[in-house]
């Protein structure tokens, strides 16, 4: 008479390994604080320019090369062209963060797929794919990036592409190693013994157990990518004027460091804080997802 009740619905939930990891992460105060700070920075970069009265390219003829002041909302000062540094820092943050995240995303996608296929296929396919990775390591990425940008012009997507093209290598290696190790674990053997088809083994058994390592390495990748973008911008290969990024701002500020120190202090400070936070979060993730912690 009663509608069949699913035993899974009536029984209490178990302690998922992800939940345990989340709790461990939340216990790490440095990581949580960094997460809060990074979120605030991101929100400021996204919404700040919309709320502030100055535009990033508008010129304030009265206050050129001015140190930080409350007048006209120039809380970070102005540059030699009279543009507000606060808004420029926040806009620059948008670019740096966006490029960072996008390039990371592309790298992770390429790296995970490459590594998982190589690891799972094994044999010759694995050999060929990893030799390609080895050869790519030998390429001097900065020179190639310079070449590409010089030939094809400065386009933000090109910058993302150039960075992603070399950042996926580590991820591929790590994912391949992890795939090999998971492949030989007994629960995968058990799945084969049941007759689970290969695609199902990959998606339900291998990939979920890969995620921990992928998350950890992504968090290591992000600060590296942001820094690379800053380096490219510093060299003049990043975004076009008047659009700016932290790297460009640092470049501009470095030139007048002695006379107008605020021009380098604020963007460099923003970049440093972001990188610190990303590193602490990465550490926290690593500790939380460490398989030895049961």
């Amino acid at each position, binding site marked *: 008479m009663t509608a069949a009740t699913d035993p899974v619905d009536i*029984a209490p939930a*178990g302690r998922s390994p992800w939940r345990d990891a989340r709790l461990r992460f939340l216990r790490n105060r440095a990581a949580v604080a960094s997460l809060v700070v990074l979120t605030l920075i991101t929100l400021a970069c996204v919404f700040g320019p919309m709320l502030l009265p100055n535009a990033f390219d508008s010129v304030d003829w009265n206050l050129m090369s001015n140190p930080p002041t409350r007048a006209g909302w120039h809380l970070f000062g102005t540059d030699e062209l009279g543009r507000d540094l606060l808004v420029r820092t926040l806009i620059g943050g948008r670019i740096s963060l966006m490029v960072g995240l996008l390039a990371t995303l592309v790298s992770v996608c390429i790296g995970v797929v490459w590594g998982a296929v190589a690891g799972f296929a094994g044999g010759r396919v694995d050999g060929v794919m990893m030799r390609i990775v080895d050869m790519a390591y030998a390429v001097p990425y900065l020179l190639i990036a310079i070449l590409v940008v010089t030939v094809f012009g400065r386009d933000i997507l090109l910058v993302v592409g150039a960075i992603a093209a070399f950042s996926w290598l580590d991820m591929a290696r790590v994912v391949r190693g992890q795939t090999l190790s998971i492949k030989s674990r007994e629960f995968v053997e058990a799945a084969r*013994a049941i*007759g*689970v088809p290969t695609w199902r083994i990959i998606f339900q058994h291998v990939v979920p157990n890969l995620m921990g390592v992928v998350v950890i390495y992504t968090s290591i990748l992000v600060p590296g990518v942001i820094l690379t973008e800053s380096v490219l911008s510093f060299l003049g290969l990043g975004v076009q004027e008047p659009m700016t990024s932290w790297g460009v701002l640092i470049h501009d500020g470095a030139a007048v460091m002695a006379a107008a120190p605020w021009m380098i202090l604020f963007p460099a400070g923003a970049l440093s804080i972001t990188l610190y936070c990303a590193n602490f979060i990465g550490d926290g993730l690593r500790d939380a997802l460490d398989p030895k912690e049961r």
Partner: protein
Amino acid sequence: MPEPIAPLLSVRDLQVHFRIRDRKAWPWTPAATLKAVDGVSFDLYPGETLGIVGESGCGKSTLARACLNLIPATGGEVVWGGKTLRPDDHAAWLAARRDIQIIFQDPLASLNPRMTIARIIGEPLRVHRPELSDAQVHEKVAAVMAEVGLTPQQINRYPHEFSGGQCQRIGIARALILEPKLIICDEPVSALDVSIRAQIVNLLQELQRRKGLALIFIAHDLAVVKHISDRVLVLYMGKAMEIARSDALYARPGHPYTEALLSAIPIPDPRVERNKVLQLLSGDMPSPIDPPSGCVFRTRCPKAIAICAQDKPALRRLDDETAAACILATERQG
């Protein structure tokens, strides 16, 4: 005279050889062959328990996996229900996997740590009976959990929340859910505490009685194997040394290796143990890449004679209950 029952599983001259490339050698030097299983034959009847015993490196785990095609056999045949299953015939093996299941030595490692046991135990159903709804699968999972001594309240838990013995019960539940005819048990209790071992052994015996299961029970502990098995196969370096009814194996071992193994097993009784005459084997197990000529056991056998180095002895019937591969074993009154 009763009708002869057909064996459920017949393994004939099964071989699993691995080619080992020495990375340091030149590419044209021929690869060495590791003969993990080198010509093993046995028949398994419905509802019977066959114990396979041997020390590390004897090939028992490889043999178990070859019976399931987890490691493909390189020679010989596996015959299931009268039909030969070739290693490359994946469709036939997929069908056979409904009836042959396996449980592993490390109970926790054989379970995916990111899946609830509802999914773990239910997986065979989803593969072989995709027409069942979620609720139906979960009903069956709950039912089989009760059979192995787990409570249905635990159905959403993850493997790390269970003890070793409970994890092994989960593995057994997963093996049982398709109602197989044979379960291969690869050292199922070696990693468990002594007090839990008895629980699992009793559980397996009870399930076997109730469902008419056949079991292949692999272990290095001869005492446990003798307790649970009807017949025992003794392996050494990939070859069968003796196959006998379990009490006959203990009372009248036919092969010198079996004698040595039996005398080496410590008995929990100081009166017996202190006064035991040990059959100590000399030397170490030879390398499986370069096995001795003739009988592989001759380098450690206390009874070896000259002819043992020349001919490989075949498994010879000594009486109704025992067959041994030793040139010195004599036929006995059955």
